[in-house]
């Protein structure tokens, strides 16, 4: 239980505006949770807050991981604990090559330093797994990458850094069908009893490749409904409105 990510009654605001209104959610290690919900419902806000983005103010609540309330930690300390966020909109960092950055990151989160040749080998292997061209390792981080390439590069980082708890924020958006399969395959190779993931998505599609253990629906900054993987199918068939109505009735 201690290696689960446990979110309790989380209230978050941005620039004075309340976005999350008491989120309760548990992502157990070894499990895949899907988080769905309409645009603007607060999914990315939750992801950023869990990773420690300075713009998001926690008004109330806790988030526990490995016996620590991670909300007190800096982003890099959270990464060192094993957390990872695949960004919905990854930043472009001029002049910083993918390989230089990833090696620095690897050496930061891993207890042992990796030699340059060993790292190059690891990076090559993961790039092959994700069908990313070798030339990308020399390119500047996300600069000039297409939308789909950025998402693939996020999963490359995930595969290289091998965190224990990953939040994937709409990694599937903007991917063509082949890319989606490749990315899903990459994520699936990471699955093991010590790995947990929160997959934020709008589409059932990715869940055909990565089977979720549970599906949660966020509306207006709260998780209003949870269920098994069939909930994702229902959402796709009926749309959020009906689910929201049902949820409102049940609240």
């Amino acid at each position, binding site marked *: 239980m201690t290696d689960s990510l446990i979110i309790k009654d989380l209230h978050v605001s941005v620039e004075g505006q309340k976005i999350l209104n008491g989120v309760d959610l548990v992502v157990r290690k070894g499990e895949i949770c899907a988080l769905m919900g309409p645009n603007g419902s607060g999914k990315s806000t939750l992801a950023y807050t869990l*990773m*420690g*983005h*300075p*713009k998001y103010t926690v008004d109330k609540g806790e988030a526990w991981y490995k016996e620590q309330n991670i909300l007190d930690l*800096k*982003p*890099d300390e*959270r*990464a*060192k604990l094993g957390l*990872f*966020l695949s*960004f919905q909109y*990854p*930043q472009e*960092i*001029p*002049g*910083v090559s993918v390989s*230089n*950055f*990833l090696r*620095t*990151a690897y050496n*930061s*989160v891993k207890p042992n330093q990796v030699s340059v040749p060993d790292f190059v080998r690891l990076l090559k292997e993961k790039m092959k797994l994700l069908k990313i061209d070798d030339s990308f390792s020399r390119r*500047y981080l996300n600069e000039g990458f297409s939308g789909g390439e950025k998402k693939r590069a996020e999963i490359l*980082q995930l595969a290289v*850094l091998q965190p224990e708890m990953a939040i994937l924020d709409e990694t599937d958006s903007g991917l063509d069908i082949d890319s989606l399969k490749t990315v899903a395959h990459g994520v699936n190779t990471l699955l093991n009893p010590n790995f947990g993931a929160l997959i934020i998505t709008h589409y059932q599609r990715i869940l055909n490749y990565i089977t979720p253990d549970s599906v949660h629906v966020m509306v207006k900054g709260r998780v209003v409904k949870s269920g098994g993987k069939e909930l994702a199918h229902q959402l796709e068939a009926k749309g959020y409105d009906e689910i929201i109505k049902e949820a409102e009735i049940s609240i």
Partner: protein
Amino acid sequence: MAAQNQKIITKNTMQELSKVQSSFADETKKEALEIFKAMPIPKEREEDWRYTEIEKLKLESFEPFESKTGIIATKLSDDLIEKGIILTDINKAFEKYPEIAQKYFFKNVKTDKDKFVALNAAHFSNGVFLYVPKNIELDEPIRVNFHFGEKNSIVHNIIIVESNSKIDFIEEYSNNEISHEQLNCCVTEVYANQNSKLNFYHINNWTKNVYNFTNIVGAIERDAAINWVSGCFGGKLNRIKIDTLFNGQGSQANNLGIFLGRGKEHIDFTTNMHHNTPNTTNEVLVDGILKDESSSVYRGLIRIPKEGQKTYSYLENHILKLGDKTLANSIPSLKIDANDVKASHGATVGQIDEEHLFYLMSRGLSREEAERLIVEGFFEPIIQKIPMEELREKIREMVRG
């Protein structure tokens, strides 16, 4: 024509340029001394000195100005000497090659426009004289290291590249860690004659009590090109001013400037491009980072008089400020009197992007590591433009500190 392959850099393959006094320059020195004495210390309200405050600088406290400067330069092979290449101390050049030296000495540099040029003309004690005759292409760069020890240094250099020749010139300036204030004042005259090509690298790396005033004036003749690359690091006040005179049709220049301010350093960087003839091309890119409580001013002038039709001239300046205690000033300006030209300038002054920092930190990098990567990354595009790998790596090293 290829130069003999020389292994340079290490001290034992370089020669110490000796200082010999000559009477040739005495007249110039005497005149300049009067001008120097009569000129007041520049005021901040003067265009060339805006945002640099030196009114309180007591120049007389640095006297005597003359002192022997340690200069170590590439030792020319017999082959190169036979071909007529001259690399020697400037005083020796006055004595041994008076015709060439007299022709170029203070040809384009005015002593009465700048107090520190006047100081230089009045008091220089040594410097480098490099003459490359026609039709010579060197595969190895000519290197000169100026090590200024603990005393003040006033050096005057002249670099002449004759028609159809092609060389790389690397000058590096440094000094010792000292507790008292030190004054360094350099003037370098550069002449790229018809259809020649010069890659000119200037790197300075001062300790924190140095006042440095560097003036470089380059004249580019028909179809010739100069690529300036300068890296400025350290010093209490580190001033560098590069004037480029496009004197012949088809002349070209590139001007890359990189500086990094730390502590309480002030960097004062000027590039003036004077497009005096038609069909000349220029690109200026000056990028700087300010850390701690450092400050900077960049002045970039593109001047195109009536004669300068069909000029292409482009200037850009980017400053990245780390922290609120840094101060950056950027004054790009265009003075254009010709009507058929393409010229533009742009300047940006920015802070480090918090979203970038968060992205990198979310992968486990500490704030310091993330900043370091962003700083190095900021310079990488300009470093990529440097035509020589050795210098690219050198600048990267200097940035890393």
